[in-house]
């Protein structure tokens, strides 16, 4: 192997690793706050990517309708839970966030889809649509189960994944799609060629990680989210609603997923079911980070990206096997480091 190939693989690995890092961070965040192992993270990726590609092609994405349908479901849940103490403000607020908002976005989507919107509009619409899907999914599928065990939440998570994947096939068809590059053009530095798109991936990933860091470190809501992750009862005792933290976590996770999808769909052809494998690699990174450590997860994600790039060069048939094999020594080490197995208490 010469240096050019090696540098190329490193570049490729870092680009993918950056995406896995974002997804891994989202998984860690959602698990820490809600104890949900977010299998549908990959669907947020494909939904974001394919909504963007569909809009860019001047077609109407079905996800906008799904958002409205889930919103109506969320509204119904809100009413049902508050049925004994219904008051006007609660109904209006719930209707605004769960029905009016997705209805407006649906109308905008119909309007713009007909006239091949500019890239920025497609991105904004795709992000908002997937963010709403994430938010309402939490309300409909996970909030009612918030008090149950990790296992029950995991089963719900698998169910949501399967449902979203099936709906994905319905919305986007079995054909793969590619979207337009966010930043076109390219330049070469030495023997390396940087495309505008790969620079976009680096830039957005770094910006997002910095933004998350600021959010968690400096803002009251960011701190409240961390507090919920550290001590759920403690958080409730200072008045932080677990449901609020859950909503923010799912909102962030779905935006991160959609953004990742939008960043990679100009580079790779994505299918309705491609998200699962991409999400799973973020999951490998999250597991290496023990589902708690953000820096470890980000570092592990880069390793996953690099291992993937090199193994696709040397043994492309086995590239997934090699990536997932990374887990075995990590799990082995972790199990040796923590010999006592505690039963889950709640």
């Amino acid at each position, binding site marked *: 192997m010469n240096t050019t190939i090696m540098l190329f693989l490193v570049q490729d690995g870092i680009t993918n690793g950056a995406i896995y890092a974002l997804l891994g961070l989202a998984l860690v965040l959602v698990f820490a706050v809600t104890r949900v192992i977010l299998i549908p993270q990959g669907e947020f990726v494909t939904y974001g990517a394919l909504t963007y590609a569909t809009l860019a092609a001047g077609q109407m994405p079905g996800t906008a309708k799904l958002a409205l349908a889930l919103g109506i479901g969320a509204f119904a849940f809100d009413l049902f839970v508050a049925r*004994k*103490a219904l008051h006007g403000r609660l109904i209006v607020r719930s209707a605004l966030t769960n029905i009016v908002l997705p209805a407006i976005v649906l109308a905008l989507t119909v309007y713009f889809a007909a006239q091949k919107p500019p890239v920025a509009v497609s991105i904004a619409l795709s992000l908002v649509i997937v963010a709403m899907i994430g938010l309402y999914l939490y309300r409909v599928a996970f909030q009612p189960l918030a008090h149950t065990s990790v296992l029950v939440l995991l089963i719900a998570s698998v169910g949501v994944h399967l449902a979203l994947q099936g709906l994905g096939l319905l919305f986007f068809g079995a054909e793969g799609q590619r979207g337009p590059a966010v930043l076109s053009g390219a330049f070469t530095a030495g023997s390396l060629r940087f495309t505008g798109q790969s620079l976009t991936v680096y830039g957005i990933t770094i910006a997002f990680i910095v933004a998350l860091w600021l959010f968690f470190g400096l803002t*009251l809501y960011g*701190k*409240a989210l*961390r*507090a919920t992750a*550290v*001590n759920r*009862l*403690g*958080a*409730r*005792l*200072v*008045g*932080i*609603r677990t449901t609020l933290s859950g909503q923010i976590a799912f909102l962030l996770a779905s935006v991160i997923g959609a953004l990742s999808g939008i960043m990679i769909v100009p580079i790779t052809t994505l299918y309705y079911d491609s998200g699962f494998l991409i999400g799973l690699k973020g999951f490998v990174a999250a597991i290496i980070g023990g589902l708690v450590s953000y820096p470890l997860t980000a570092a592990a994600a880069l390793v996953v990206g690099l291992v993937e790039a090199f193994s696709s060069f040397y043994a492309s048939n086995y590239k997934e096997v090699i990536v997932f094999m990374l887990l075995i020594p990590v799990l082995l080490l972790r199990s040796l480091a923590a010999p006592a197995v505690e039963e889950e208490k709640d």
Partner: protein
Amino acid sequence: MSALLSVTDAHVAYGKVEAVRSVSLEVGANQIVTIVGANGAGKTTLLSAIMGILPLKGRVTFAGHDLARLDIEDRVAMGLGLVPEHRELFVTMNVEDNLELGAFRIERSKAKASMERVYTLFPRLKERRKQFAGTLSGGEQQMLAMGRALMGEPKLLMLDEPSLGLAPIIVADIFRIVTELRASGVSVLLVEQNAQAALKIADQAYVMELGEFVLSGKASDIAANERVAASYLGFQHEGESVI
């Protein structure tokens, strides 16, 4: 004058086991009320149920409102605060962040002044403000837990075994602060195994045994009660048998 907190005929059960049976109590404004009793009497269970952590059968009103349908978070917003036995601090966050979150339901503009008040009550916390809560000593953690609850500007603060496992000098400090709270207009419902210290500062007292209140009255009367003296205060009146 109606009581700030009023509990009427409360029952709390873990599955089929009733840990608290038919308990009624009142806490007035500017009062320290203590519940004393042996380990396992149901004191912690009762506080948890008043806070909404455990389901309670019976009636609980706070500042004139029925709490039946309110979540923990709503009760906090109404001015009910609990410092639980295990403190439930945010151990991987620093002291200042813990305190800031204590004021989550309070207007931002007021939080700054609240923090200064807490630092005046607990100067030690100010020295440690950038330290992780998990690295504090037991006494400091107790102070932080109380400080965090005070950041929410409670009308009534419920303290669950604040002296547990702490050195006597720190216990004295914490009890002194409890009396200062009363002077500043915060009522306190204090659950303690250290009955002697609790009865000394309290206005009213309840004695709990096996999930029921067996005695109640002015704290000074309870402290003088022979049975209480024998069972909880660790001494016996001369010539009298225990029980």
